[in-house]
């Protein structure tokens, strides 16, 4: 299961965050900060997994992240998720944002956080339990624009 999705920039500023368990606002910010510290220390060409899962619940958890330009996309998941699958999920998520905003950049997320949030919301709700049917998912993202469709898992490795 996905425990949390965090998106923050190179300076640790949260751009979009969703926790699937309840934490107080302070704890949430704390988690984001710590995650940022863990993630930002890492080089570009190291693996995308971190076993710093103590941040949110049990030791079972893993942080899986990707770094795109100025943004970090971090998923906190437990052991029932396929690591590579989540990496692809992040990829698809970013591509979806890209479709929504046409060449998504950090500013899009900043200024259209509601849209991004809503775009993400169904995706995340599905992934709250776990999202696997990716080819299906993005179609639901933006209700106003049902034509959005993500090509079939380009980087499915």
């Amino acid at each position, binding site marked *: 299961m996905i425990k949390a999705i965090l998106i923050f920039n190179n300076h640790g500023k949260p751009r979009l965050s969703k926790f699937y368990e309840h934490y107080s606002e302070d704890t949430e910010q704390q988690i984001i900060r710590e995650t940022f510290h863990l993630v930002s220390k890492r080089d570009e060409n190291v693996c995308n997994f971190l076993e710093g899962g103590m941040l949110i619940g049990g030791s079972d958890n893993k942080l899986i992240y990707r770094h795109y330009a100025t943004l970090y996309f971090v998923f906190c998941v437990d052991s029932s998720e396929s690591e*590579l699958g989540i990496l692809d999920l992040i990829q698809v998520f970013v591509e979806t944002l890209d479709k929504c905003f046409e060449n998504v950049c950090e500013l899009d997320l900043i200024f259209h*956080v*509601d849209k991004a949030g809503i775009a993400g919301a169904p995706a995340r*709700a599905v992934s709250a339990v776990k999202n696997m*049917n990716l080819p299906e998912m993005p179609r639901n993202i933006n209700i106003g624009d049902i034509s959005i469709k993500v090509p079939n898992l380009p980087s499915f490795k």
Partner: protein
Amino acid sequence: MALKIVKGSIDRMFDKNLQDLVRGIRNHKEDEAKYISTCIDEIKQELKQDNIAVKANAVCKLTYLQMLGYDVSWAAFNIVEVMSSSKFTYKRIGYLAASQCFHESTDVIMLTTNQIRKDLSSPNQYDTGVALTGLSCFVTPDLARDLANDIMTLMSHTKPYIRKKAVLIMYKVFLKYPESLRPAFPRLKEKLEDPDPGVQSAAVNVICELARRNPKNYLSLAPLFFKLMTSSTNNWVLIKIIKLFGALTPLEPRLGKKLIEPLTNLIHSTSAMSLLYECVNTVIAVLISLSSGMPNHSASIQLCVQKLRILIEDSDQNLKYLGLLAMSKILKTHPKSVQSHKDLILQCLDDKDESIRLRALDLLYGMVSKKNLMEIVKKLMLHVDKAEGTTYRDELLTKIIDICSQSNYQYITNFEWYISILVELTRLEGTRHGHLIASQMLDVAIRVKAIRAFAVAQMATLLDNAHLLTGNTQRNGICEVLYAAAWICGEFSEHLENPMQTLEAMLRPKVATLPGHIQAVYVQNAAKLFATVLRSQEGNTEGTAAQETSQLMIDRLPLFVQSANLEVQERASCILQLVKYIQKLQQKDVEVAEEVNALFAGELNPVAPKAQKKVPVPEGLDLDAWINEPPSESESEDEKPKAIFAKEEPKHSRPRHTEVDEKELARRREARKQEQANNPFYIKASPSSQKVYQDAPGVEHIPVVQIDLSVPLKVPGLPMSDQYVKLEEERRQKERAEKKKKEKKKRKEKRSGRGKKHDSGPESEEDITPAHMVDIVTEEMPENALPSDDDDKDPNDPHKALDIDLDKPLADSEKLPVRSHRPTEAPKSPAEDGDTESAAPQEPKKKSSKEKKEKKKDKEKDRKKSKEEKKKKKHKHEEGEDLLGGQPDEPAVQSEETNEVAAPPTSTSVSDLDFWLSNAPVPSNSQEAATVAAAAAPVPQEASGTAPDSEPDEPKDTETEETKSSKHKKKKQKKEKEEKEKKKKKKHHHHHHHSDGGGDESVQNGTVEEEEEPLPPMSNYCLLAENSYIKMVCDIQGNLQDGSQVVVSVIFENKCDSFLKSMEFNVLDSLNSKLQRPEGAGPHDGLTVPFQLPPGVSNEARFVFTVQSIVMPQKLKGTLTFIVKNEDSSTHEKLDFKLHFTCTSYLITTPCYSDAFAKLLESGDLKCSSVRLEGVNMPFHHLLARICFHHHFSVVERIDSCASMYSRSIQGHHVCLLVKTADQTVSIDAKCDEPSLLGNVLDEIKQTFSQC
């Protein structure tokens, strides 16, 4: 001023939207907090306005602020307001905000229940969707209970978009409201075969997530998942299923055997790395679960290891990481196969990526052997020196200790080397693992007797150099090792070269800066050392030396008496008094050494950490019972406890004086032993005391201590463990040379003799002898310790509540709470009943049908069982009979029966699985068997369908065997059994229909349950043909999976006293309908019935027909030929029959949501037709039940004496009915997109009612 007012109103007119807020925050980088607080004030103003658009905008901004870490819970009520807006764009904002900041303790959630329910049932699918999405984030136990039924209804929504979400959210509902799991589970299971892949994968997800926590409850789903695994092409679904199997295999090793084949195939065929990786993972899990390595499993391991090596060698760091991760799983069971890749893993230790290095470290743990331990640890020590970050260094440190200490120091051949490693590790600055090193030191020193002398010497050096370790005390965890050092030096002081010097070191003023618990140990052990020193000095007959020592103690101890730490203080003052007393005696020239030593005498063995827990409760001990009668009078209260404590008092007395008699001493020793039994490291100081005092106190500490021939010089502050590696190398070389000389050297007792020796090449494990004969003392356990496998499950785990047996049939009480529509309405409006009942009570029916199937499987399995096992089985049958005993052959009431049928639930479900698993191919004759298994797998699950094709041939053969063998048995027994079987069968076929019906026909059942009048028994089996030998009854069902197939279930009953065999079923095909025959069979060949019938027995076979057009009913002529076998003769007989395919039999009970039903009717595509039935004299619900039962309809909605019903043909035609009744007249208006089908169905309905 005026300008300001104008400006303010304009501001309000152009309220900030979210973009403005964001822009504002970015423009106020310096005083962000201040800016936001003004914004929040504005938002508060906006929320006070009545305009919903303004409110929504405000809530939208709040959502953003919440993400930035501002508490917005004060606006919860406004969020609810926005949620309840009728406009979707606002509603969406409301739900988004709610999903971000609502949680279980948000009290306004209570207010949302009805709003959410309204949204859930909204005709707009997006309203429903957004409600489901939001709900998934903030569902509470109350919401879950109230809405469970609504969500469950949505699981059958016509839109896959909604179905998918509903299925997913059920998981959250289960977590919050575990009671809903059992009622909802059948439908969830149904969704595994949903036509929409999204819904299907959602269901797979939910079940996987559930099963991961409580796998044993989901074992019975294994066949279904197996089928999905072999048929699905969706990698995401496959990954999930494969992961799930990984969790299931440990519970059922046979499952593993079955899995290996398809998984290996997948590994070979897939190009998706993620899938490959998960397959490898599950194969590993399977291999772990199979205890014995079968020959061809080693191939699978090799395959896995090979694939993983490819991953590890990949340039992609992610793959490398995962490869190592999976490798470590193999390591646990098959270390050999991983060890060959040691080079690769050591290479990964140098990787720049910390995650990868850590994984490689994990692997090393399992790869060490006696041979390479030193080498590996040496390499790790190098890394320790290089490591810059403390986290990684600490990790290295723990790993080194783990590696060395694993399985009771199995791989350590030279403990002196290990001690030096530990000592070297103490040089790490700022590590937090000081206590770990300390406990290792203690453990080794206590349990390895041979090493004590060396350990004590090393510890003495450590104590001497304590100032090096405690340089900066604050952040230093390493000073913990001093705790161990002091204790070891004190406890084993007889091994000390220079106890006086160590005593000095322990009493240095600097010690007072150490943490309290360490000081306490220092003080206590100084006393022990003092005893040792006294003994040696008195032996030397120099009274003055001994007195000087006492003086030293008396001088130094007051420092500790002043300690703020209570324990240090207590011990110090105790010992100080003792020493003073000793000094007094010394001045009188009394020899005290013996008596002082006696204080610390006594053997203490290491006690296992869990020993205390494992002491079995003695028989007859009841801790809850009163030992004495509860005190009734106050006088007895005082007396008794006093007596108890008086006895124990001596235990608490402290040795303050030395005039002790033998008895007293013994008792104290006892007390001390008990006191220290809690300390697992306490061990008896051996009474050997041949210590010779050499140096006077004050002499410079000598850095070089001579100990043993094989021990090198050691200079404190310099690493020395390396020398051991060299030494060890030499030693081994020497040994090898010696061995070569004496080919037949005796094996030492400890080494298990493994036949051959390698002269050349690397020495094998067994050839390495330890440097010393080491006796590792095992930790003590109490006698009769119970074997413990305590699962320390987290009591707070929400999944614990979901540990629910899902195979048990549903009890009547287990229904989801059903909403009462509107309080103003009559409490039991029938419409509501019809609607809501469709959800809950349908389950028992389905369960029972499943049970039925299982029973059948059970029987099949029975037949397969060999003679020996039969007796056991009989017992089972008897159980079954008991159940049936109370019941007439033709059960009168259905609902009642549902419960009874399902009675022995778990056993049957398990044996169902057994059956499936017993089909598992023997791994050696792989491919063929696998396909058979794959084909057979669907059988237990699919209601109808492939039965005849996939019915394996074995049952037939084994059955003959069985009947033969039973013939040999006593006749009486045989008869009994047959009777039982017959009864069972009757019951079985009578109800078989339900199993095929599936769907919602239970609606009718639900109606029955709630009204008083019971339904008359019904059966869809109609007589096909009959003669004096055999009777055939049949039931015809459409096949859900295939739109052109119809399944005919025929029950053959042997009516004569002879044996019926070689039955052949043949039908004259028409243009429209054809019997499906096995490949290669001619169009006129008959099908062999896959069983034989002993006298009085009946059995069921299924035949699949292909039909082209389903709009017309039709009849097919057929013949059954069979051989009647008596004891002396056998005759060939035949029986003709006519199969009647009614249009009804093409219909399949399909549940329908009332919204969808309404839309269907509105669409205008349907043709209308109607029929009137006169003189129908039965209650309305009976009428509905009959239509449901005989014609495969389901009730969509029922209002008073009017009901809408729905069914679907196997080719997808919708059939809708509106049934009304008044004064014995029933009118049925029907709509269908195929008029002739409709006409025929109506005719058939009419006929049904004309018959009764």
